[in-house]
């Protein structure tokens, strides 16, 4: 029983990481339909922001707390810049967008190499997050609990913004019918940029969280980009709740399979399961029903 609970927590913590890295994509890819291959590099930017902050703020806890909003701003600004410079000219050309954002990601990787060097770097986790707590024989790593809390907080924040604020209404309106949004008085280009800012900013926050579980390097984003896209596609494009459920299901599946096989076999098995699922349900876990899509 303890083994099952331990593996379940491991799976949930993997799911929390998946959720954090995919959350920004639910906006930029899920809502706007932009295949942004530089999303992983925005995660990297968030991680390096944490690293840079620790050089000037020695208290690890404080630097982590400051890093969260700062990484959001840094990655968000990079995203808004990418949208303004390139993506806004390519909204009707998805393949060109894919290539351009991939090129942008390579540039960001090289920039990171030039500034920080090719080898990976590490940050110090705050003392509070280095230990673990045990409940009934089940071990919860503090850092993993922190990531889980952060992921849920981000989901809650994003849900509230999308559901209850004027900005959220504008974002959803532009996604659903751009022309109608324009003739309703909404400056759709400004909304696009803001959406991209928030989506990219969330990638930055994910980057901060990832410094607690792994090293920081110029190519760290590449390791996560495929998983992030998988979560959004399997959850159902544009469906936040789909992404949340998918992230945790994939996380638990991965943990269970890792326990009974090996990491590589588990990865392959999860991918096979995703392919089979998408064959059966190409639209993903959730779709919205309407009488008309007009």
């Amino acid at each position, binding site marked *: 029983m303890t083994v099952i609970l331990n593996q379940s927590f491991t799976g949930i913590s993997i799911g929390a990481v998946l959720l954090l890295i995919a959350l920004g994509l639910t906006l930029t890819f899920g809502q706007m339909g932009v295949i942004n291959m530089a999303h992983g590099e925005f995660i990297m930017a968030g991680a390096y922001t944490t690293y840079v902050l620790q050089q000037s703020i020695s208290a690890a806890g404080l630097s982590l707390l400051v890093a969260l909003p700062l990484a959001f701003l840094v990655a968000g600004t990079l995203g808004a810049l990418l949208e303004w410079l390139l993506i806004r000219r390519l909204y009707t050309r998805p393949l060109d967008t894919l290539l351009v954002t991939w090129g942008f990601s390579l540039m960001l990787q090289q920039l990171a190499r030039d500034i920080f060097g090719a080898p990976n770097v590490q940050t110090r986790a705050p003392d509070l997050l280095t230990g673990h707590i045990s409940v009934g024989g089940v071990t919860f790593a503090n850092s993993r609990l922190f990531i889980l809390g952060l992921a849920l907080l981000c989901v809650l924040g994003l849900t509230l913004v999308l559901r209850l604020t004027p900005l959220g209404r504008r974002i959803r309106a532009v996604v659903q019918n751009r022309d109608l949004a324009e*003739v*309703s008085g*909404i400056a759709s280009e400004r909304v696009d940029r803001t959406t991209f800012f928030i989506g990219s900013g969330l990638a930055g926050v994910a980057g901060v969280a990832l410094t607690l579980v792994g090293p920081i390097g110029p190519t760290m984003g590449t390791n996560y980009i495929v998983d992030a896209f998988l979560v959004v596609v399997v959850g159902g494009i544009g469906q936040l709740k789909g992404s949340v459920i998918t992230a945790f299901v994939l996380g638990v599946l991965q943990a269970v399979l890792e326990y009974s096989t090996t990491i590589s076999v588990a990865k392959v098995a999860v991918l096979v399961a995703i392919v089979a699922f998408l064959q059966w349900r190409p639209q993903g876990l959730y779709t919205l029903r309407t009488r008309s899509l007009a």
Partner: protein
Amino acid sequence: MLEITDVRAGYDRSSVLHDVTVAVPKDGVAAVLGHNGAGKSTLLRVAMGLLRPKGGRVLLDGEDITRLAPHQRVARGMAYVPQGQQSFPHLTTAENLQLVADGRSNGKEAVAEALDLFPVLRELSGRRAGLLSGGQRQQLAIARALITSPRLLLLDEPTEGIQPSVVAEIEETVLALSRRGGLSVLLVEQHVGFAMRAAQRYYILEAGRVTSSGEGGAQAEGAVREALSV
């Protein structure tokens, strides 16, 4: 109020409008009639800025707005109800209206006024717009346009594809709006009777050209029907 002058427009390489000139009188209604494919909706898209013309100009109260984005035209007092009962399908009825009211000082009152015009929308405020009937969606579309307190309203076939009971309600609302002053209307409509009751001026569009125009009113209905039957 609105002058569309010598406008040429189309999609990619195909031309739809050929040197079209249409004017909407201040506080009056101009109706554009014509068969399917004549270019009526394209004309409204040009007027609203959704399609950039290849030639000609669009003037609002003398100001050249030809190159302005649609949302900038809305800020100048234009509103548009497109063809096909368009709404934001995944937003609720209330959200569809609140979206336009956001940031407006009189937003709350404007939403209340719009709901007074179409009380059925009040009962459906929590329902997703995509789940409304065609007639309800059209009422929502008109209500949404009116929240911006427009000086000029562009209506593209507001009664098309709507059940007869709602058509009468929409026609009455449009007529009432056009008579209350402070609002000019450019109406594209297939129902000649309704269009001529509402309009002070009419234009008949055929294959992207204005082939006939004149004073509106019920007395002109026969001439318009004859022109359209050719």
